[in-house]
């Protein structure tokens, strides 16, 4: 059993680069590091196991989606070098966002802290010592897959309502498909408002054939609320405490899913769990999570007003995939990615009303590397909201904390830049010699950006939100006597 020490250095590369940008503060290995080290031993029992329980076991346990269980020392020890590699490179836990720029406070943040990464790294470097077994945390009792709702911890209770999709058999080695499924929502007899919605495969095997689904709530009058768009690796939506979407008796869930086959038949089932606001206590705002925009509007491709395939009705294939009611959302934003090359696309979206960004999600398909969301405000200020790394398997919807949700005044110009890597260096790329075009299939590509927006009814409401945010910031960062901030 080896012995090591816990150091205070930060080993995460992106943060080192950020430090460099801040003026030569880059921490390098060497004497300075040694001076910062303490003599405390890092062990699996005391230091690593709690981290794995908190951030890893939900997937890495028997019956879940992780490729290997990581619940005991014997299970973890052989993987120690790989675990270090994955956590230091920020591949695992999957949290595909640049941690050095933009907003960093999210409700569903599953990433490790810098300290946790350092602990795992030091432990692996020291030969992955077990330590004192008396310090091992008690094993977690994980419920069956079908009983796990990730939002339960955040929201304090299981969902109030669960809707399952019809079973759908994805045949072995078949082509990509977009089945058209609907489910009646049972169990409500009056209008209720959705506080949160979690989306999950109904079985672990469903995960293997699930590309994405864009479930929407279809009203009796036939209108559809597409605010619940989901993807592989994305859990769902938690609205701000003052916003939500209505659910009425008679509503149905239209699943609008994209499945792709593997080498065996899979019976796929998807589920939506709804957390509801109390009766007679609707939220102040109605969230509109369906807005999004294409990366290719700016390049001259996004001009199509009625692309041919969409003319066909829902009874044929894929449903009413007509244009969005928002004229800025162009569905036929074409792409063309040259072989063995990188490519970038950019789209622009002008806020015609003041709004609050609650959820953000990139969507790029296999060649996607990242998307950058920027805002240029009406007063000329500009800032990067976030740089979203893209992993086809973990298309995360980032749920901003209520007091960190970006506020966009009317007239804000949002810019999204999509960056593609159609080279052999991209591990997801099935063939870098292909010209890649815009298409629904997994091997084709897309570039659009989904936003969960809540619009303010009046400028006064928006200003109130701004005032509240500024007051909060003042409390967190008290103004000093000389009038300057505390930085």
């Amino acid at each position, binding site marked *: 059993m080896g012995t090591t020490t816990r150091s205070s250095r930060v080993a995460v590369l992106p943060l080192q680069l950020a430090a460099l940008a801040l003026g030569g503060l880059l921490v390098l290995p060497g004497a300075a590091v040694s001076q910062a080290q303490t003599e405390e031993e890092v062990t699996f029992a005391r230091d690593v196991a709690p981290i794995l329980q908190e951030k890893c076991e939900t997937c890495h346990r028997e019956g879940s989606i992780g490729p290997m269980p990581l619940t005991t020392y014997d299970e973890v020890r052989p993987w120690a070098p790989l675990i270090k590699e994955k956590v230091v490179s920020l591949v695992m836990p999957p949290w595909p966002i640049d941690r050095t720029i933009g907003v960093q406070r999210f409700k569903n943040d599953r990433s490790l802290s810098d300290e946790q990464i350092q602990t795992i790294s030091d432990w692996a470097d020291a030969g992955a010592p077990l330590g004192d077994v008396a310090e091992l945390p008690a094993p977690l009792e994980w419920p069956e897959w079908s009983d796990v709702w990730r939002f339960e911890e955040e929201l304090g209770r299981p969902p109030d309502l669960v809707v399952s999709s019809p079973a759908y058999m994805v045949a072995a080695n078949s082509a990509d498909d977009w089945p058209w499924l609907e489910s009646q929502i049972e169990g409500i007899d009056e209008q209720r408002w959705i506080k949160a919605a979690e989306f999950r495969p109904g079985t672990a095997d469903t995960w293997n054939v699930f590309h994405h689904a864009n479930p929407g709530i279809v009203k009796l009058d036939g209108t559809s609320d597409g605010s619940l768009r989901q993807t592989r690796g994305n859990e769902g939506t938690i609205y701000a405490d003052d916003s939500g979407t209505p659910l009425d008796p008679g509503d149905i869930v239209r699943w609008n899913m994209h499945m792709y086959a593997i080498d065996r038949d899979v019976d796929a089932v998807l589920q939506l769990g709804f957390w509801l606001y109390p009766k007679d206590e609707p939220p102040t705002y109605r969230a509109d999570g369906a807005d999004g925009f294409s990366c290719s509007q700016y390049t001259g491709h996004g001009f199509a007003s009625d692309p041919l395939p969409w003319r066909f009705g829902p009874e044929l294939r894929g449903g009413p995939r007509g244009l969005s009611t928002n004229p800025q959302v162009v569905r036929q934003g074409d*792409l063309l990615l040259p072989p*063995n090359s990188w490519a970038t696309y950019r789209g622009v979206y002008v806020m015609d009303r003041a709004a609050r960004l609650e959820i953000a999600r990139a969507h790029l398909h296999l060649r996607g590397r990242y998307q950058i969301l920027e805002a240029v405000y009406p007063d000329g200020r500009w800032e990067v909201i976030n740089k979203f790394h893209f992993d086809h398997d973990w298309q995360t919807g980032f749920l901003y904390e209520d007091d960190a949700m970006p506020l966009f005044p009317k007239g804000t110009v949002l810019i999204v830049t999509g960056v593609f890597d159609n080279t052999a260096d991209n591990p997801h790329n099935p063939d870098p010699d292909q010209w890649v075009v815009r298409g629904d299939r997994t091997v084709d590509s897309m570039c659009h950006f989904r936003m969960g927006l809540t619009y303010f009814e009046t400028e006064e409401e928006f200003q109130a939100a701004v005032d509240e945010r500024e007051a909060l910031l003042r409390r967190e960062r008290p103004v000093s006597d000389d009038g300057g901030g505390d930085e």
Partner: protein
Amino acid sequence: MLRVPHVLVLTGTLVLAATAACPSAALGQLVPRPPITQQDWQLRTVRESGQPVIPIFEGWYPEENGTYSLCFGFFSLNRSEALHIPVGPDNFIEPARFDGSQPTHFSPLGADGMTREYCVFTVNVPSDIADERVWWNLQVDGHTYRVPGHITARPWRVDNLVNSVAAASMGSEAEAPVAGSLVAPVVTLEGASGRVVRGKSGATAGELTVRAGSGLPITISVALPEEDELGDDLDPDEEGVLVRQLVKWTKFRGPEGVVRFSRDTIEFELGPEPVEQTVMATFREPGNYTLLAQVLSGSFSSQCCWTNAYVNVRVEQ
């Protein structure tokens, strides 16, 4: 390679002439262009004219005889200009034994916004093709654009006659789609050889004859497959259920210059009985042409299902 101002030809205000490549091509001979990776912005930008056409590999599917078919389409970056690239050093498939089935006419973007021409031809490869790649090469203004087709990657597997996954769901709890919407229709080329064709691999009929400048009516009959052609997963639809269909006519091969169709696309509903659709094609230049009718019951973007029907036409002076 010849460029043809598509819109002007259609309005008849310009006498067709075999114009040489655009000025940018001449400039390109003097100033070497940067490699593809450094000219992405230009490549991706759709312009009225002067842009290339990009070959696209759409996917592959197995044939009943154990061979495979590779599907190719193309992506034009020109809004108004059609390109004419004869089979030869600027338009060839390699290995050479697979050369010859590709188009020579490359339409500009359609007025309907369709930027892609999906699977306009197929290359049939033997069952032992293994991991060999079949490259379609196009040279435009001195630059080569090429793409490989192959059967090695499952994600490029496409359906041909029946949308297999959706068909497999017909017996599930899912809301059953209309069976006829999941199959490639049966197309009969009336007035030609009466040849019947179904699926993307297509077949060529003809030859029809017409004088230059005169209109040639071409009629196709479209029908849903017989029950025994639907496959094990599909039940025939109840009588009276209509399925929307689309016929899309394009020039596929022939002398430079476009062919004018009375209607480029025709939408109609199809029930148990075959439906005839007629288009009037007008040719300005004499020569031997091949026209392509794509008859669609699904969607191009999901790659299923449609039938490619080719018609040979000899245009006399």
